[in-house]
């Protein structure tokens, strides 16, 4: 071997050793060895004792395990009123001592004692105990990773002034959560996808609390990543109970009530509800497709849950569209939805779906006329090969042949639901051609078995279409889609959060709840059809396929039940009663967008109707 080869070999050997040892060292420095959390009896006692102390009542004796419990560092006892932290006591690691000290400190505050006697539950203080479980150095030597250094909802940040024994201040996960800084640092070029925590902002806040500058803190102080977890956290990590139909229907009913609570008289919904401040988030991005989707959910709730108020709400919502967004497109009998002066084909499809679903729970001449006009427009948008054209130029009175995500699947679902009501063969024919394209020629390319788009509307339509046509090819497509999704579903312990049933490709991003909801919406009709068929023609060779599908659905339904606001992280809510039934985008989200409630509600109703319940 000549010199060049020897050099290259030495270089590769050195590189391998450096990388391996570097990985081990970085992993060890980033890992936090965590002390266990207290048991349930200790948790119950701690919160009861705080309430007793604040009301000047004698404290009950602590259970033996609570007496012996020591955290991995400081214990933070906080009091929240109307979603804002109003008091905090930071104590040492002994739980009973921390609770007793905090009780004494809070009892001395007359305003807190007064708040405890408030008549409305929303006005009463809420306690929150957060325990330090361990800490680690803030390893920020690696470039590009600063935004990912804190595990959202689990890691806080503490700073100590001076090198030895100086003053320390901390931002606990509740503090960072309340500031809305988790999961927001990086805005990805994908809708709704943000991630990471802005460490610079947190360090600046810690420096302010210490009365110094960030630069000085870096130079003369120490910043640590601290694992801090709340006693009685939300969402819970306790094993989920067996699902029951009533449980799902109650959750869906709560969702419908949430939507109705946040609907204006005009029929317009609160697009994004901010539970932390009990207000609608300002913005000019109101989505009419999501307005249509939410109305569809209310129409479902009206029929399946016998909620006349949901039917009234859905009619109001359609009335809002008629008054502000419905127009004619190309012919007097073709109706479409306009948003910002442009024809919105997706909104037209979802409004048609909502209208068709609403007619399932009773006749309505206005809604029938609206449905007839919308389906006529949607049929006119179809290409000869079955695909839909997703835009319409009103000036030139012609369809524009471009495609957007979801719209074709939504239209197929709308046409089939309309057919169930109107029995118009043109709707069925259009739906058949559209689905043949979506699940056949529309998804045929090299690698199409390894990658799939957002097909949750398509596969719902396939489930509905099975009653009227041969859907073998489309069903096979959806089975492949469902198998692929099952690989992306988290099992318990896959992420630092209780995310079993969510979907994702790694633990760094907080899982999105709506993704799980939409997978359930699509998988349940598939489950229903496969269960009815129980045949091998679609690749279902035995019952294991169905078992796997059921497992995937049940995991995701469990996630929806855990993450809905029932009641949710009430210490950060201004008015928990108004937030009840809402659904956040992620566990760190303190807002609920209307489509998140819709997808979750529709998913829960679907499994309540077609699911299998061992517990009953």
């Amino acid at each position, binding site marked *: 071997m000549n010199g060049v080869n020897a050099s*290259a070999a030495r270089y590769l050997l050195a*590189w391998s050793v450096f*990388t391996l040892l570097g*990985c081990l060292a*970085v*992993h060890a420095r980033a890992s936090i060895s965590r002390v266990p959390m207290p048991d349930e009896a200790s948790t119950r006692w701690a919160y009861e004792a705080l309430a007793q102390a604040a009301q000047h009542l004698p404290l009950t004796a602590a259970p033996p395990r609570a007496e012996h419990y020591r955290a991995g560092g400081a214990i933070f006892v906080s009091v929240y009123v109307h979603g804002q932290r109003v008091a905090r006591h930071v104590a040492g690691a002994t739980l009973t001592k921390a609770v007793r000290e905090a009780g004494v400190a809070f009892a001395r505050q007359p305003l807190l004692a007064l708040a405890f006697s408030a008549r409305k539950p929303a006005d009463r203080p809420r306690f929150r105990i957060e325990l330090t479980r361990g800490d680690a150095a803030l390893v920020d030597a690696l470039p590009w990773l600063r935004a990912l250094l804190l595990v959202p909802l689990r890691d806080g940040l503490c700073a100590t002034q001076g090198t030895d024994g100086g003053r320390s201040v901390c931002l606990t996960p509740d503090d960072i959560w309340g500031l809305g800084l988790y999961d927001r640092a990086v805005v990805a070029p994908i809708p709704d996808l943000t991630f990471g925590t802005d460490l610079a902002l947190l360090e600046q806040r810690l420096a302010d609390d210490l009365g110094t500058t960030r630069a000085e803190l870096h130079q003369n102080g120490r910043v640590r990543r601290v694992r801090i977890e709340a006693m009685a956290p939300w969402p819970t990590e306790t094993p989920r109970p067996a699902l029951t139909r009533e449980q799902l229907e109650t959750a869906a009913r709560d969702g419908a009530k949430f939507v109705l609570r946040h609907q204006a008289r005009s029929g317009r919904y609160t697009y994004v509800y901010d539970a932390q401040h009990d207000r609608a988030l300002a913005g000019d991005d109101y989505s009419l497709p999501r307005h249509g989707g939410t109305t569809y959910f209310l129409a479902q709730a009206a029929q399946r849950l016998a909620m006349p108020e949901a039917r009234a709400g859905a009619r109001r919502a359609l009335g809002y569209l008629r008054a502000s967004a419905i127009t004619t497109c190309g012919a007097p009998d073709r109706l479409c939805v306009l948003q910002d002066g442009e024809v919105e084909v997706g909104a037209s499809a979802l409004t048609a779906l909502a209208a068709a679903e609403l007619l399932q729970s009773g006749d309505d001449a206005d809604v029938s006329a609206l449905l007839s006009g919308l389906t006529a427009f949607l049929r006119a948008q179809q290409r000869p090969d079955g695909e839909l054209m997703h835009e319409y130029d009103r000036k030139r009175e012609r369809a524009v042949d471009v495609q957007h995500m979801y719209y074709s699947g939504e239209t197929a679902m709308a046409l089939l639901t309309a057919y169930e009501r109107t029995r118009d063969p043109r709707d069925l024919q259009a739906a058949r051609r559209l689905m043949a394209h979506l699940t056949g020629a529309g998804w045929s390319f090299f690698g199409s078995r390894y990658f799939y788009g957002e097909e949750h509307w398509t596969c719902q339509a396939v489930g509905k279409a099975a009653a009227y046509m041969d859907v073998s090819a489309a069903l096979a497509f959806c089975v492949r889609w469902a198998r692929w999704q099952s690989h992306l579903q988290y099992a318990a312990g896959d*992420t630092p959060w209780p995310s079993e049933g969510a979907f994702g490709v*790694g633990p760094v991003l907080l899982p999105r709840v709506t993704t799980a909801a939409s997978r359930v919406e699509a998988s349940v009709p598939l489950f229903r059809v496969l269960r009815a068929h129980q045949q091998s023609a679609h690749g279902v060779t035995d019952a294991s396929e169905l078992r796997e599908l059921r497992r995937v659905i049940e995991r995701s339904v469990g996630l929806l039940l855990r993450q809905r606001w029932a009641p949710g992280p009430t210490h950060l809510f201004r008015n928990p009663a108004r937030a009840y039934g809402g659904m956040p985008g992620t566990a760190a989200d303190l807002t609920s967008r209307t489509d998140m409630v819709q997808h979750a509600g529709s998913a829960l109703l679907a499994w309540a109707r077609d699911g299998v319940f061992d517990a009953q």
Partner: protein
Amino acid sequence: MTRLHLVAVLHLGLALLLSCGIWLVLPARYLLVDVVGTLVALAALASALSLSFSRTWAVQLARAVAWLELVTGTLCVSALALSAAQLAGSYGPVGAGGAALMAAVALLVLPYLVVLPAFQLFWLRDSP
């Protein structure tokens, strides 16, 4: 085909792969990746041309470019591995999906920017 011709073809292929990957496939512009990747691609292209036209300094340039590719590739793989180690330390197991994603990235980088340059240096060992 001689060894030098094979190295020329490989350098040309790598230049095309990097250029197309960076400027046609990557969905976002990122200065570090764009600049370093393009420089490596241009160097590989220069090496391929010089070997094809049998320049006297072609072998020296090919060795230098192979070293450049090797160093860039190993730094890239190290950065990915250390980042993964840090995230796994902070967040816990990366899960099946995350592991598959990281393996896919490593599979894309390792053969082209680590194994291939190492082989090229081996093939060029006896060339003057």
